[in-house]
Each structure stands twice: as structure tokens, then as C-alpha cells.
């Protein structure tokens, strides 16, 4: 049996939940309004349930197209970042090497770069490689940008696994790589999963590089689409709201399903760092 909630706690919960959700709920409500309702002054609270904005977002503003781009970019970023970050984190957490501290410190430093410091030269590299207005052209810098966090989180996860396990594996005849993929990877699966989610969310939400690298609407991701959403005759708030709701939906589902993993992953670097 849970104890009855203390009034202070109850009001704390209410404040936190309402404060977090209400602003966005207003956007959700807006997305189900009609244009007349959106333009009403004072605003009407309750929508008439029309899905016109969704229809116009999907058809006129080619929302599915943006979603497809975002899925491709965020998905590819996540996969590549994990594949690259995992051995790195393993080596940093488990192998004795000179200069490990420097590498970890360096990664932290890189994570701190203001994006604009690297934006110009990255743009030129991609221009030379023909990567502008391509999905991979955005994925490459995204992988580089998400690596520090991914390595950092995975390193903490690997460090938490007992060393004996790996020594046992060594005595059982595993090489370093075998010990990694036969013993440690299965055990670090929750950590990998959390890292994957965080990387995905990062790539899904990133705006600055997407704005610079993807100028062609054919390849633009959702955040760029949403930020540059402008109508000729009015701010299309209804369509923006509908698009935003759809862009956010996958993230909300991820949060609801994997709340525990996300919290542990985010705090992994925090307490120990």
C-alpha cells in the first residue's frame, strides 16, 4: 500500500506535471481547431475537433516527406554513432592504455564546441564531398556531435560491469573483441539502448546544422521545416501546431516507454562525472 500523499508532495506533483504539459497541450488543442477558432480573440479553449490542419500539414506542407527525412537522418545517426562509440567506450572503460584520460577529456571538450565554431569548415568539407543537401551529409557531422555523449554514457555503463567477468572470459580463451561482443555487449544492452534513444532524440531535434546543410526542402528534416514554416498571408499556427504535434509524438512515445532508461542514461554521466 502506498501512503496517502502529503499535501506538499501532491501540490509539487501537480505543479510539475501541469507546468510540463499544459503549454504543449495548448498546442495540441490548437492543432484540432479550425482556422476560425485559431484566429478568435479572445482565444477559444476547446477545439471543435477538426483535423483540417493535419490534412493541410500532410498534403500541402508535405509533412510525411519531412518525417521521412527525419527518420532517415536520426536513424542512420543512431546506428552509426552506436557502432563507432561502443568499441571506443569499451577501450576507454576496460583496457589499460596510455592517454585514456586525455581522450575522455578531449571528447568532453569537443562536446562543448559552440556549433558555429565548426559550422563553416564542416560546410566546406561537405561541399567538397558533395554532401550538401544529402542525408549522409547531415549524418556525418551528427555522428561526430553525438559521439562524445554516447561514448561518455557507454563508458560509465561498461565501467559498472564487474571486471571479473571479463577476466573470466579471458581465461576462458576470449580475445579482447570476443570479450566485448560475447560477454560485455549483451550485458550492456540496456546502456546501448539508452544511448541509442538519446542519440536518436538529439538527431531528431537538431536544428542548426540541419538549417545550414539542408537548404533543399526535398531533404529537410522536421525542425527545419517547422522553423521556416511561414505562410504568405498569415502565420499558419494551426499547421505549425499540427506539424509540431506529429514531430513530437514519437518522442513522447519514447519517453513514456523508456522513461527509466533515459533517466538512468542521462544521470550516468552526471553523478560520476
Amino acid at each position, binding site marked *: 500500500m502506498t501512503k496517502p500523499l502529503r499535501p506538499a508532495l501532491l501540490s509539487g506533483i501537480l505543479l510539475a506535471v501541469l507546468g510540463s504539459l499544459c503549454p504543449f497541450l495548448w498546442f495540441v488543442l490548437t492543432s484540432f481547431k479550425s482556422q476560425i477558432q485559431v484566429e478568435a480573440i479572445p482565444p477559444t479553449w476547446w477545439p471543435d475537433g477538426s483535423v483540417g490542419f493535419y490534412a493541410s500539414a500532410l498534403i500541402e506542407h508535405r509533412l510525411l516527406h519531412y518525417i521521412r527525412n527525419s527518420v532517415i537522418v536520426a536513424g542512420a545517426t543512431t546506428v552509426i554513432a552506436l557502432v563507432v562509440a561502443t568499441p571506443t567506450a569499451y577501450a576507454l572503460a576496460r583496457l589499460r592504455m596510455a592517454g585514456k584520460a586525455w581522450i575522455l577529456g578531449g571528447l568532453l571538450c569537443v562536446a562543448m564546441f559552440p556549433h558555429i565554431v565548426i559550422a563553416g569548415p564542416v560546410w566546406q568539407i561537405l561541399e567538397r564531398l558533395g554532401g550538401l543537401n544529402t542525408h549522409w551529409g547531415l549524418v556525418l557531422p551528427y555522428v561526430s556531435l553525438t559521439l562524445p555523449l554516447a561514448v561518455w554514457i557507454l563508458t560509465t555503463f561498461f565501467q559498472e560491469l*564487474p571486471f*571479473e567477468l571479463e*577476466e*573470466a*572470459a579471458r*581465461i*576462458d*580463451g576470449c580475445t579482447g573483441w570476443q570479450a566485448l561482443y560475447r560477454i560485455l555487449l549483451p*550485458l550492456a544492452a540496456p546502456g546501448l539502448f539508452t544511448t541509442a534513444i538519446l542519440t536518436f532524440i538529439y538527431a531528431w531535434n537538431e536544428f542548426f546544422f540541419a538549417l545550414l546543410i539542408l537548404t533543399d526542402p526535398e531533404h529537410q528534416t522536421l525542425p527545419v521545416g517547422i522553423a521556416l514554416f511561414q505562410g504568405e498571408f498569415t502565420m499558419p499556427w494551426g499547421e505549425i501546431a499540427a506539424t509540431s504535434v506529429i514531430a513530437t509524438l514519437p518522442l513522447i512515445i519514447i519517453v513514456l516507454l523508456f522513461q527509466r532508461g533515459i533517466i538512468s542514461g542521462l544521470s550516468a554521466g552526471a553523478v560520476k562525472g
Partner: protein
Amino acid sequence: MAGLALRHIEKTFGRTRVLHDVSLEAGEGEFVVLLGPSGCGKSTLLRIIAGLEPQTHGSVHIGGQCVDTLPPPDRDIAMVFQHYALYPHLTVRENLAFGLKMRQEPKPVIEQRLAETAALLEIHDLLDRKPRELSGGQQQRVAMGRAIVRKPQLFLFDEPLSNLDARLRASMRVELKKLHQRLGTTMVYVTHDQAEAMTLGHTIAVMNHGRIQQIGRPDQIYHEPGNPFVAGFIGNPPMNLFEGSYRLHQRELEFRVGDLTLKVPFQVHDPAGTDAGTATLGVRPEDVTFDPPGSRHVAVAGTIDVIENLGGDSVVYLIVEGQPLVTRTSPVLRQHAGDSVTAYMKKIHLFINENRVPLPSS
């Protein structure tokens, strides 16, 4: 042919030296215990034998062959870890088979070894469980099974019983002994628990501060401790040790510590070549009685401070001329705290310059 030989092993971590010139031999089928307090270097030594850690100097021979250049899998050893190190994502069966699979043993061989091991350890019922579904004792068995199934030339145990509760530890101790008797393989066993060491080992190597203090059979270690550290580390309650000064007389040795003067009726050859100096005098609690035991004892008068009644025997804490003296007597003493008594030391150990000075036994 020796099962294991360590020659002048030294190990430094950065600027700290954790092992000093350690040499040790274990015959084929011998059970060697490395005993010492935590931080004495015994685990490091074990890991050097396993190849998990390279030594700075010296060499390791297993089965007569120098293994210094061999990685762990090629040393034909198996190791049981303190925390068992069972692979949590594999079943017991897979855990046991993992090492054989890595060595690409043929399937029938794996099956057969599995069956043998399971029978030996009586773990049939556990084979399809995951480690987290096992009790501590069961995990321990599986961990041993994983070592046994490999049929190595040498077993290494790193405090394998330290995570079990006292009763289980005692029973596993017995099982381990039986197991050794059946397998007859050389074993090296690291522990800080003297009871384990005494019951399991053919040979005990007592270690402290990265040095081997004494190597010997359990009874040697107990009866003839080579130095004050070994003397104090073995025994329960530990040996009474007094650091004081001595003076040699014609037929006796006079030992002073504080206000207490002991006259030991032995003729002693002073290794230092002088007639006086500092020394450590030790007497085991069980070598102190309250009945005059006959000749050649040392009698002291004191008062009882505390009596611990353990049922079969009792531990009596005396104060003798301001010095504490612990005794263990049986049967139970019928006196009370504050009473004056006379106690008789039956056997005395004397250490001069940290070395044992043999006294004729009483």
C-alpha cells in the same frame, strides 16, 4: 615435477612495489594457500600466475614449463573468482560450456564434460537457470563447475568463499577439500581466513606487505611461527605478544615489559651475540592454564578482567602487572571478574630481530 613454481617474482605498480622477491613451489597435486591480510599482495600474485597481470621481474612455471609469454587462455589454468563472475546473460549450462566452446572443443566432448561436472557438483537441476536465479551457494558451485569442466592443470581460487555466510562457508570448505581429493589437481587458493587456510592447505604461504613471511605445513605455521607477524596472524584468539627487553642469565632469560618481569627457565643462544636487547615474547592463549602444569612453566599473578564463557571453554582476559594477557581454558573457569589468580604459561615463543629463537619445548 613441480605443479607450480614461482621464481623471484617482483611486481611494481608505478612507483609502489607490491611484491618483493616471491618464490614458491607447489608439487603436483598440492593444495597451496596464500594467506594474508587484505592488501598483502596475494591476489596480485594469483593474477600473475593466471597471466592477467604481468610480473615486473621473475618467472612463473606451470607443469615445469615457463609460461611468462603465454596469455591466460594458453596457460591451462582455471580460476574461480571472489564474485563468481558468472556471465549473467547465459544459463548455467552455457556458462559451463563457454570456455570449452572458446577452445573449440567438439560438441560431444563438451556434453560429456558438462555431465561429469554436473554430477560431481550435483547441479543438474540448475543447468537451465540464469545466474540471478541461483542462491549464493549455488552460484559458488557453478563458478567452481566452470573451472572444473575445463580440466586444467592448475586451479586458482581468489577468495571464493568470502561472499558466503558462515555456515555455508564451513560446508563449502569441506566440499572443496573433498573435491581436491577427488581431482588431485594442483590448486592455489587465496584467502585471508586462517581457518580456511588451516583446513584446506597442504602448504600455507603467509604473506604480508608483498613478502612471503613463512611457508609451511599448517601445523608448522601454527606451532613454529617464523616471526611475530605469522605468530599474531594465526590463532584465535590471537597470540599474546609482548614487546620488551631481555637479559640473558646463567640458566634463564629475564624478559621485561613495563612492570612485568618474566623469568623464562631456558638457556637461550642469543642470535644477536649480545646478552641483552629487545625482543618479542609470545604465548598462545591456549598455552596458558590455571593449573600448575608441571615443570618449566612461567607463573604469573594477575586479576581477572573479563570472562567470556563459550560453553565448552572460556576466554579469560587477565591483567598481569598492568599488561593484558588473554587465555583460553577448558573447562569453564569458575572464578569471577576481579578475582586474583595465578596463571601458568606452558609454551613460550621468543622472537629476536623479528626471527624466531627456538626454545626447547616443555
